[in-house]
């Protein structure tokens, strides 16, 4: 949802998802999302989807759309779900632009060094819940 060109902020209690397209960004045995899933690059913003109000069966098509956009052969393994407020605790922002629908970016990383980015990624990962496609 955009107001003109201005992205809308997402409320703290809204759920967002980071779709996991690399198998080493989670551990199946301990049901843990790894911090690597939240390291921003090459853009200094991190792509997520706003899933608040959606059922499980409505969330996965968003991830499949993310995969379909990619020219390379990537696999959707799962997603990391978290509240937008968990991101804001790290002095980052969640900005929804709806391009594509329900897409948002986690922004505010630019002033951080790689160590500070990793620290924030560790804390965001800790606040996340792992949901696998084959659960």
């Amino acid at each position, binding site marked *: 949802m955009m107001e003109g060109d201005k992205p809308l902020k997402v409320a703290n209690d809204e759920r967002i998802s980071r779709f996991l*397209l*690399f*198998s*080493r*960004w989670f*551990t199946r045995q*301990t049901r*843990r*999302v*790894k*911090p*690597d899933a939240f*390291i*921003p*690059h*090459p*853009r200094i913003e991190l*792509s997520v989807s706003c899933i608040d109000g959606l059922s499980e069966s409505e969330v996965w098509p968003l991830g499949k759309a*993310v*995969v379909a956009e*990619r*020219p*390379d052969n*990537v696999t959707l393994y799962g997603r990391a779900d978290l509240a937008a407020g968990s991101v804001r605790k790290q002095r980052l922002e969640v900005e929804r632009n709806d391009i594509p629908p329900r897409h948002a970016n986690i922004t505010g990383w630019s002033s951080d*060094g*790689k*160590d*500070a980015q*990793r*620290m924030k*990624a*560790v*804390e965001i*990962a*800790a606040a*996340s819940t792992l949901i696998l496609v084959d659960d």
Partner: protein
Amino acid sequence: MIAIDFPATMSSVWDFPSPESRVGVEIHQKLSEMAADFRSTWTHGEHWNTAMSDLTEVAKECCQPNWDGYGAPAISADTFMLAASFIESIPSDIPQPEIGASSDGDVTFEWAQSPYRVVSVGISSSGGLHFASLNGQKRCFGSMPFDGVFDSRLYSLIWEVLA
């Protein structure tokens, strides 16, 4: 400690989709040189062997750009070599880390007991080592150049997390 038949061990896990991947070829060449060096001068523990196998698997999975689906650069040969040196530097009393990669092209090492007790380390092509540790409410992060020696602060953080 055991001596490793390095070339045989590594060739079994090293199968890049060359010649498509120049990075893969470059890494392969460097690895062969390193293997010759190690074979003549080192013996290593089983955990080292396992970690090196994991590293080569990660390098294979990340040897093409966009391996993460979000536009990540391929892991460079330099990063691979630094990561191999980092593995070599890990004290033998520290458990083997989980090895991975992040979208900035770093090879990553992780020691975790739970989501809230974790040490995450990234090593980049420039030789920079960037770490972050979460142990309950206690957080710690920093960067340093990797000079081939395992950092004592990192050693302490890992044991605090795993204790």
